[in-house]
């Protein structure tokens, strides 16, 4: 089982994720239509790129936009989760050891204390965001079972990873389950709302171009939309 998960299934998951998202990314931009979207993308490329970069950059910074600043607690939980969700999978020592063995490259790694902290942070912030979904009427009304499913596949690798880390039961079992959950997540990315991990950049770039080209960017406004 372990060999299957770290062998062929690993490659399947990574390929599905990368190819799937590349296809979606390309299709997104090919599907932009200057007349239907009412944005002259080609005629004002420089203004468009400027708007897109500003929009993405500002929204990636905690409290970088008015939107983030108006909801400080939500923003803290959001970044707490997302910073962990990006850094732990990429920079965990164990993951890089695996990568080193697999493809001969590795990235900088997190110290064990930091890795623990970030993993718990992801679980804590995730739990908070799920609770927010249940408690706040304006979020509850939007919530579907799919949203819980997405949270499940997002948090499962963390929970199983922590279980393995603290050896809460048979290590091999948790490790295999952890790897399986991680790979499931990779496969889910192109096909579910998880696609936002890449399409966030596409969607933000589009709105940035829209405002950058048409809705004020060329009038000198420095807004981060």
């Amino acid at each position, binding site marked *: 089982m372990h060999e299957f998960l770290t062998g062929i299934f690993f490659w399947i998951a990574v390929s599905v994720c990368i190819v799937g998202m590349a296809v979606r990314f390309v299709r997104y931009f090919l599907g932009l239509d200057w007349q239907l979207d009412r944005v*002259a993308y080609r005629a004002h490329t420089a203004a468009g790129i400027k708007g897109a970069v500003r929009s993405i950059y500002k929204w990636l910074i905690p409290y970088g936009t008015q939107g983030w600043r108006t909801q400080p607690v939500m923003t803290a939980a959001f970044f707490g989760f997302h910073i962990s969700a990006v850094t732990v999978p990429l920079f965990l020592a164990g993951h890089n050891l695996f990568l080193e063995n697999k493809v001969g490259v590795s990235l900088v790694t997190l110290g064990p204390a930091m890795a623990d902290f970030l993993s718990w942070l992801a679980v804590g912030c995730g739990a908070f965001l799920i609770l927010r979904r249940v408690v706040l009427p304006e979020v509850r009304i939007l919530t579907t079972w799919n949203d819980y499913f997405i949270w499940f596949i997002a948090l499962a690798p963390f929970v199983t990873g922590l279980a393995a880390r603290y050896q809460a039961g048979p290590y091999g079992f948790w490790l295999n389950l952890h790897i399986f959950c991680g790979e499931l997540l990779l496969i889910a990315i192109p096909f579910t709302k998880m*696609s*936002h991990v890449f399409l966030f950049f596409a*969607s933000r770039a589009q709105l940035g171009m829209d405002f950058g080209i048409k809705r004020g960017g060329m009038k000198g406004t420095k807004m981060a939309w």
Partner: protein
Amino acid sequence: MPEGTYCNKKPINTPEEVNFLLSDSSGAKYYEEMKHLDVDCELLASTIEKTMKSRLKTWLEICAHCGMCADSCFLYQVNGKDPKQVPAYKIQSTLGEIVKRKGNVTNEFMRHAMEVAWAQCTCCNRCGMYCPHGIDTGIMFGYLRGLLYQQGFVPWELKIGAGMHRAYRAQMDVTDTDFVETFEWMVEEYEDDYPGLTVPVDVENADIFYTVNAREVKHYPEDLAEAAVLFHAAGENWTIASKGWEQTSLAMFAGDWAACKMQVESVYDAMERLKPKRMVGTECGHAHRATVIEGPYWAGRPDGRPPAESIHYVEWLAGALESGKLKIDPEKRIKEPVTLQDSCNYIRNHGLKKATRTIMGHIVAPGYFIEMSPNKEHNYCCGGGGGFNGIGVFRKQRNQALLTKRDQILATGAKLVIAPCHNCWDAIRDLEEEYEIGIRWSFLKPLVIKMMILPDHMKPEE
């Protein structure tokens, strides 16, 4: 009854058809017939298939259901934080459902969608700035309005409004002759006070081609004269066009994209014909949005620009004040607490906040200008945008919506509100009528005329 006599899928194209629909007072029969109007599900599905591309599809799909848009929506706030007023919910439960059901929706559903599209969203685009994914629900509601219009599910006044543009190339039954004659008549009325005041018609290569809102011709003709006075005082070489003079577009509010194109092309034709250096539009928000921001796309102009450089009245006025073309008598500046309404259509959606504030700097004595909160790009809709002001059947919802602006104005303590936008001006007038908070409201033109220093040769003979 699939297609009604009053309520049907056919656009209105002639003055006779306009009058016929107008004869149904308040649209009583129109809305009765709407209850039985068939939904052409196949057309709905095929239109979506053809026109819903990656931007809208992705927006519907990746919405994280986080609810961060909720507080950004003034209609959510002013309606007791009703979860059904959360922007994401409003669009997912209407457009989202239509897409999910591949157009297989009922008459009842479409009437509900009509109410959401016109009474629960003013297309102010504020929520778009508060969504981490950059989902602009206002744009999606604009798209939904187009689908609803195509199926005949559009408020009575907007069906008429779009029809007016088709029949008259104006939002009201004002003909080209009416326009020119009214302008000339008003200028004559003001001539004694401003010697040499004229209204140049169809002058080629002028520096300014001035476009208006048909309401001015029909209901506020003094606005035309005031525009003439200010151009005259600034020594501008300007003209109006005897054809293609209407800048507004109720067709945009209605979602009648074909009429939007017809309307805006009439203005662009005038630009091509008269070859002005620039077009200046009147103090209207949606007119600017329609003719300057969105219009080029309806007309199929790949550079996204009108044929001549086109600016809003506030840009012209700010420039004239800054360059000294117009001079203000410091003694006559406003010396009472005054606030400013930021129009969504050219402040949030065209970045012109500096121009209006430059004007305030010139016409308000220091210390008297009080900003609303929030303001500039983050300002709230006046409460009547996107056509909401004019729809009788949704009047109750509109009056509720006005409370946001009422409270914003009250918080400033100002008794004078400057609203350089017809729609905002109307909403603020209505909120005073409805809630009597003791405010006055004004466009810029009459205020500036009262305080400008007229060059000697323009002064009336004693």
